[in-house]
Each structure stands twice: as structure tokens, then as C-alpha cells.
């Protein structure tokens, strides 16, 4: 039949055999709505003349994007949202502090594999972590989905990403997906579905990291093949046709760093070593889970972060927060000097919980480093893995985390002392001192593809 996973799913839900390029109207198994678009969604429903959503049991509502409310205007919008949820009698509602919509959607089982889910957030691609076709849409599309229980889609072409080998110590699937973004670019998967092969048996969190970041390549959806949640029929045909095939060897993967202000300006960490940072953000739907906090805690256990550096930790959900409390991870991070935020999006999108000042340089584990994303348009955001984040918090600079994970206590202390000693003076008066993003952008442009590519 030579169908990709996207073609398999959309054929099944639309009840006809469709191929890439076909325009279809499909039923939706779930609609996800979050706080920052609720006014437009409610407005859209009202304009449509629909008083009620089509099926309250298929709607999930979250307060996470600016939560808890940072200003009276936001607080008022949250109030409107709560009233609407009550009035509509929507049973699935997660208020401020419960976590990021995408994490909860996946870990609490709201994403049915093999179905189409519409979300009001661009990272709704995350639902591909369990084999669902999750597509982010704007508020009016979401209002229409809420009213009709259907949406229109053009069946996407697909790009196959095959991972081979096993990750080495200190390297994560965050590095792997950044390597993929480096290869494909911010628009290389535009309108397409990215299909991940060879990683179906990874922990669910790693699969969310992969699927969610397909948004950064312009993808309509990102789906992991062969997950434990997927029924047997949910797989692409062996002779499926792809727009492009990319193979990434995990065995030889280096830690990756995205250089501001583009997510696809990615370099091996060796090019960025010594880059000073002022603030480190560990969190988001990409990297705010227990395992991410554990990786940071492995580096920070029994130590304090560098002077003049701040560390913000924001768990991606209450479940992940509780797990990190139970196993002592949170205690380690707090003792190291971290600010612990309530579960949610945190400062990822620059609205609440420790936003960036002008000239500040951040190392973030999230997924976007656009100008102004986390606060001031004159701040810079580097993106990396939780291990890289922890080392940056500890030393005040970007460094390869692997030597720290292998070192004896004495060697570890020497590494930290050396990096701290080398860190250039920074402060409010040092206009942009030490930001190497310009130079690194050149480096990323020069470094050709290092992975094996089947085009």
C-alpha cells in the first residue's frame, strides 16, 4: 500500500484511502485549549453562534502559559476561562500549577494513538510521542474544532528520521533532536510529518522531546513509530514513500548547542565551550520531566551554582514535580541554589517566572531561542540538554558535560574552578560582553553535515 504513518492515520479516521496532498475533513478525538488563547477561542465560538462545545468529554483545558497569573489582566483572563469551563461543564480542566498542557495530555493518557488531535499550541506535535497525529492550530481553528468536532487538513508528505546506535553517557535525546533540526532546518519539514524510526522503545519523556520539537522544523506533526501505546495496525507500510530520509547515528553524537536567535543554528558543543551565561532555565514541555531534573541533579549534587548565575527549575507537571520531591532530586536542586517554579511553561515564552533582562545570556533546555522569546529582545538564548544546563549553572559557562560525569570529586572541583576562573566578567555595564553568538553563527554555517544523510 506504500503509506506513511500520517497516511495510515488520516485514511483510517477519514474513512477513505488518502495520500499526501489530498485535502480531507477529519473527525478529532480531542481538542486541547490553553489559557493564552482562551479569549479568542470563546470569541470565535460566540461568533460562530455555538453556545456549547460539541462534546465536553473530548475537550481538555489548561492554565499553563502564564501561570500563576503574573498581572491583573492575565488574572482576569484566567477568571473568564474558569467560568467558561464551569459553564460548559468540561470535566477535564487543569488549573495553574498542574503543568504544561502537552506533558499532561501525554502522561495522563488523553492522546489516543492513531487519531487526530487539535491543540491551540504549536507544540501539540508532542502527541506523536504515543502515536497520535497532533497538530497545533490557531484560536479560530480551535473554536471551529470545538464547535464541529472536525477540522480540515491537507494530508502531509513525510520525512523519515532513523536513529541508529545507542546514546553514550552525557548525551540525551535532546541532543539527538537538535542534531535533526540542524540537518533539516526551521522550514525543512514545513507542512510535513516527521516520522521517527528506531526509538519506539525509548521512555515516553524522550519521545515527547522528539515529537514536540518537530514544530521547530515547521512540521504539521511528528510521530514516533512503534511505541508501546500504539496498536499493531499503527505503522507505516514498509514501502512507504518519503520526501526525505535522514539517519542520525546516536553512537557518535556530540552534545549540541543552538545558537541565538535560531533553533537551527546548531553547533557541536566543542564550538561553544566557554560561552558565559547569566541564567539557566531547566524546564518546558521539551525538558522538564523527572529524568531531566535527575540529570541536572547528577551534576549539581552537593554543590552550589556559580556566583552571579541563576538557575530556574520548572517541572513540566505536578506528577513530575512530585516524583522529583519523592526521590530527593528537588532537594538537591534547591540546595544547589535553584529557584523552583510551579509546574507549567515557566519563563519559556517570556511571560512569567523569571524572564530575561536586556543583554542577559540564558542557557535554556526549552525549544525556542527567537529574539525576545524569554523576555527582552536584547537577551540571548542558547539551547542545550539538561546536562549542559546543569554544568552551565555550576560553572557560569557552556561546557561539555561528559568530563564532569566521569570525574572523581577532586577532578570535578578542579574542572569547575578552572571554568569559573576563566569566565569573563559580566554585569549590567558590560554591554553584551562575552556573547559569542555572532561568531558561532558563522561556525554553524561552516560546519557541514556530519551525520549520514540519505536524501
Amino acid at each position, binding site marked *: 500500500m506504500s503509506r506513511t504513518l500520517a497516511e495510515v492515520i488520516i485514511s483510517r479516521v477519514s474513512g477513505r484511502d488518502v495520500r499526501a496532498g489530498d*485535502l*480531507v*475533513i477529519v473527525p478529532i478525538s480531542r481538542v486541547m485549549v490553553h*489559557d*493564552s*488563547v*482562551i*479569549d*479568542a477561542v470563546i470569541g*470565535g465560538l460566540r*461568533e*460562530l*453562534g455555538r453556545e456549547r462545545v460539541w462534546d465536553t468529554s473530548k475537550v481538555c483545558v489548561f492554565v499553563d502559559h*502564564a501561570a500563576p497569573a503574573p*498581572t491583573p*489582566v*492575565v488574572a482576569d*483572563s484566567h477568571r473568564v476561562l474558569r467560568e467558561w469551563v464551569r459553564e460548559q461543564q468540561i470535566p477535564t480542566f487543569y488549573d495553574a500549577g498542574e503543568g504544561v498542557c502537552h506533558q499532561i495530555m501525554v502522561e495522563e493518557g488523553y492522546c489516543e494513538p492513531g487519531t487526530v488531535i487539535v491543540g*491551540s*499550541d*504549536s507544540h501539540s506535535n508532542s502527541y506523536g510521542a504515543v502515536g497520535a497525529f497532533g497538530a*497545533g*492550530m*490557531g*484560536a*479560530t*481553528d480551535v*473554536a*471551529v474544532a470545538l*464547535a*464541529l468536532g*472536525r477540522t*480540515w487538513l491537507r494530508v502531509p508528505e513525510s520525512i523519515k528520521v532513523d536513529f541508529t546506535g545507542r546514546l553514550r553517557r552525557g548525551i540525551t535525546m535532546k541532543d539527538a533532536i537538535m542534531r535533526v533540526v540542524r540537518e533539516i532546518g*526551521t*522550514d525543512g519539514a*514545513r*507542512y510535513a510529518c516527521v516520522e521517527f524510526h528506531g526509538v519506539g522503545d525509548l521512555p515516553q519523556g524522550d519521545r515527547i522531546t522528539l515529537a514536540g520539537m518537530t514544530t521547530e522544523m*515547521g512540521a*504539521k506533526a511528528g510521530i514516533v513509530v512503534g511505541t508501546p501505546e500504539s496498536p499493531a495496525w499503527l505503522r507505516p507500510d514498509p514501502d512507504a514513500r518519503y520526501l526525505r530520509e535522514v539517519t542520525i547515528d546516536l553512537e557518535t553524537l556530540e552534545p549540541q548547542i543552538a545558537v541565538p536567535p*535560531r533553533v537551527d543554528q546548531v553547533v557541536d558543543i566543542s564550538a561553544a565551550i566557554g560561552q558565559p551565561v547569566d541564567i539557566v532555565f531547566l524546564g518546558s514541555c521539551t525538558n522538564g520531566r523527572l529524568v531531566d531534573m535527575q540529570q541536572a541533579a547528577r551534576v549539581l549534587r552537593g554543590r552550589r551554582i556559580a556566583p552571579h548565575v541563576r538557575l530556574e527549575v520548572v517541572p513540566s507537571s505536578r506528577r513530575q514535580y512530585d516524583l522529583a520531591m519523592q526521590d530527593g532530586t528537588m532537594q538537591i536542586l534547591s540546595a544547589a541554589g535553584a529557584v523552583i517554579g510551579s509546574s507549567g511553561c515557566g519563563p519559556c*515564552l*517570556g*511571560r512569567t517566572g523569571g*524572564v530575561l533582562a536586556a543583554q542577559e545570556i540564558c542557557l535554556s533546555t526549552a525549544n*525556542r531561542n*527567537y*529574539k*525576545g*522569546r524569554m*523576555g527582552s*529582545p536584547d537577551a540571548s538564548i542558547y539551547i542545550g540538554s539538561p546536562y549542559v544546563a546543569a554544568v552551565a549553572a555550576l560553572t557560569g559557562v557552556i561546557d561539555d558535560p561528559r568530563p564532569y560525569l566521569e570525574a572523581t570529586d577532586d577532578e570535578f572541583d578542579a574542572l569547575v574552578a578552572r571554568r569559573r576562573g576563566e569566565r569573563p566578567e559580566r554585569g549590567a555595564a558590560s554591554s553584551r560582553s562575552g556573547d559569542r553568538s555572532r561568531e558561532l553563527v558563522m561556525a554553524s554555517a561552516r560546519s557541514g553535515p556530519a551525520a549520514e544523510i540519505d536524501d
Partner: protein
Amino acid sequence: MPRAWVFGDDLDTDQMVPGRYAPFMVGQDKFHTYAFCDARPGFAKEVRPGDIMVGGENFGCGSSREYAVAALKKLGVGAVVAKSFARIFFRNCINLGIPAIESADAVEIVRDGDDVTLDVAAGVLRAPRGAAAVRPMAPFAQEILSAGGVVAYLRAHGDFPRV
């Protein structure tokens, strides 16, 4: 005559309206006044109804925020002509009734500040230095646009256009 506002590749929605100026941060009546406040100061004050935005590849990438398009709509932007569009931005334009039209050469031919005329029926964007061919839009999108957006379409017809 409409003026052209020319942008480059990969213009993201954070540049159009930064997250900190979302409607629910500053109010429904103000967010559009912050359009391009960092990336193109003065845009929100100077843009006139009917003006045309011209861009390169992947126009409107990034966040799904519809208020980026809503801001352009409120400011009266007549159409967006770009080499290619990010998918959510494209949907948002159609849904809110702003034509989002592909053109391979508009961004090369049109200069910022040019007086331009868009003739969708003839498939051209005319500028002082020449005419750029624009791609016809899919009938499905055209039907929604001619109704003034998806809400108006659904109110009138009760369902999506036929596929």
C-alpha cells in the same frame, strides 16, 4: 495606493507580536499597537488599510499565536505575499480573512515602501520595478476568504466548503 512592507525569510510570530504583548497580557484593544514593536518600530503607526506585506521563505513561523494575524487584520493589512508560509500562520490568515498568497519573485522585485497593486484575478503583484507572478489560491481557501473568513463562512453555510 497600497504600500509594500518587505520582510525577509523566517519571519516568526514572536516578531509580529511578542508574547509579552499578547491580548491577554495587554488587553484586546491594545495588542495590535505592539505589532513589530521590536523588529520594525513604527510599523503599527504607519501601516495603512490595504497595505501589502511581502516576505521570503517560511513567513510566520514559530508560535501558533493567532493574535499575530489578528493584529495585522486590525491594522488593515490587505494581503500577505511571500515565497512560502509556515502552516499555522497560513491557516490563521485564511481563517481570519487575510489572503496569504505565494509568490516566488515578489520579495526580489518589490522594495520596502513601494506603491503596489495586487491583482489576484490576474495573478500579479505590480510594483515600480516590475510585476511579480502570484500563485492562485486553492479553491477551498478562496471560498473561505471570499466569505471574509472561516467564521463567516460557517455561519453562512453551516459546514466547511466541499473538498
